[in-house]
């Protein structure tokens, strides 16, 4: 049994980071979030564009807000509502606290004395939470407490040969340790339904896999028409990928080789599931990472062929490059954009198993607190949430 040093939360879940965050219950309060983060720069502002006036999305937003804020990487939450939005911020705060057991401070502009009073109260509470967070100590926990998120972005034709199989090696290792692995990006499973359904633990899960991929094909056809097979970005094509099926066959390598135990909705809580799980969601990276984090992922392994710089604001995102040319162009290590170079399999004759073992060692260091490149360089970005209808 392999262990690492994590932050054990009161609900038993384990964080690998210990952030205090400020987030708007509805995006009309983003200005206050920025003011609070300016006054207390040690907290992480989670900026987003959701929370009201999109009737088709109310339930999803509730799931994502509560899922994100109860992720064990977060020690405490400052939640700011405006008062007139769909959900009451204080009720949402209570739901989050009941899920996580961690400190939540919710304020409502229209009830708590206006913007300046709310900002002042939130700044004071943020300072209290930061003191609480600084008293947290890491302790030894098994890798079975891990929910490991996989992602590929800016793929090229080597992603499916070098970097994604390396992530697959890590996925198999996490599952062998009793942990959980998330595979997502439904658009990048088109053409692989038979392969994935054959790996389902039972026929019910196989059917869920076929249904999820078929739904995605219909959606892609609806938007793309005769161009459906080309739902890959310009950079993917320059990188040698031609069809969505080709991209997908490389994409699914990230999930490794173990049986698929379930299919979850976007941001649906992981619960007690162990093993390889598919989360329904889009291939668009920032949206996908938000869903994975809301589901429960504490860490991401992210492959890229073209050099996508994306990280996540409150979870480490390990960047692995598929080819040595991009790795040389954007750099690696302390002053570059990439954590690891899977291109060494091609250019330096590195054995794929040795690369996989190197990735496992790197993951363990990150779990124990070593910062990834996007964390070191502050490349976390915004909270981007999947949306299938428009604001009214």
């Amino acid at each position, binding site marked *: 049994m392999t262990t690492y040093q994590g932050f054990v939360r009161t609900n038993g879940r384990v964080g690998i980071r210990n952030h205090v965050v400020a987030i708007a219950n509805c995006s009309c309060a983003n200005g206050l979030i920025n003011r609070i983060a300016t006054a207390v720069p040690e907290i992480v502002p989670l900026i987003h564009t959701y929370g009201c006036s999109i009737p088709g999305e109310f339930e999803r937003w509730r799931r994502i807000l509560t899922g994100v804020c109860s992720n064990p990487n977060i020690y405490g939450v400052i939640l700011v509502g405006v008062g007139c939005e769909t959900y009451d911020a204080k009720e949402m705060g209570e739901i989050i606290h009941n899920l996580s057991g961690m400190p939540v401070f919710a304020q409502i502009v229209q009830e708590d004395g206006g913007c300046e009073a709310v900002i002042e109260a939130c700044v004071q509470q943020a300072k209290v939470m930061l003191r609480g967070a600084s008293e947290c100590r890491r302790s030894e926990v098994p890798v079975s407490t891990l929910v490991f998120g996989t992602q590929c972005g800016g793929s*090229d*034709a*080597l992603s*499916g*040969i070098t970097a994604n199989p390396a992530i697959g090696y890590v996925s198999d290792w996490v599952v062998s340790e009793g942990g959980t692995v998330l595979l997502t990006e439904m658009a990048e499973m*088109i*053409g*692989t339904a038979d*392969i994935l359904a054959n790996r389902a633990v039972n026929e019910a899960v196989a059917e869920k896999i076929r249904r999820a991929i*078929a739904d995605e*094909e*219909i959606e*892609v*056809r609806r938007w793309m028409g*005769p*161009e*459906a*097979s*080309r739902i890959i970005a310009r950079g993917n*094509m320059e*990188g*040698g990928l*031609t*069809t*969505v*099926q*080709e991209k997908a*066959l*490389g994409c699914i390598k990230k999930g490794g080789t173990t049986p698929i135990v379930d299919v979850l909705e976007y941001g649906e809580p992981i619960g007690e599931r162990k093993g390889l799980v598919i989360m329904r969601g889009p291939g668009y990276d920032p949206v996908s990472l938000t869903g994975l984090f809301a589901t429960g992922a504490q860490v991401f392994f992210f492959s890229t062929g073209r050099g996508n710089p994306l990280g996540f604001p409150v979870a480490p995102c390990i960047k692995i490059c598929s*080819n040595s*040319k991009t790795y040389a162009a954007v750099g690696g290590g302390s002053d570059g954009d990439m954590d690891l170079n899977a291109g060494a399999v*091609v250019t330096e004759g590195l054995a794929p198993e040795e690369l996989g073992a190197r990735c496992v060692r790197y993951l363990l260091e990150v779990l124990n607190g070593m910062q990834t490149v996007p964390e070191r360089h502050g490349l976390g970005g915004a909270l981007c949430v999947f949306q299938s209808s428009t604001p009214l």
Partner: protein
Amino acid sequence: MKRGIIIDPRDNVGIVLEHVEPGETVDFGGICVAARQAINLPHKMALKDIAIGECIMKYGSVIGYATAPIICGEHVHVHNLDSEKLMK
């Protein structure tokens, strides 16, 4: 001799691992094919002649079909490969 890789023995395209100029030979692990055009890494090269409508195989799976006749050593990409008919 330039380097290439065949992912699965059932594949009819290989991946070039170095930029190749027309006429240069690529060694796909023992199977050697001369390039008919310049091909950038990591793009696909036909390992045999492929008729129009025939399946293109990579990873041992179908990634699409030929939309034009393809000659051994040709670059295989958006100009001669599509998968639109495979989709719902």
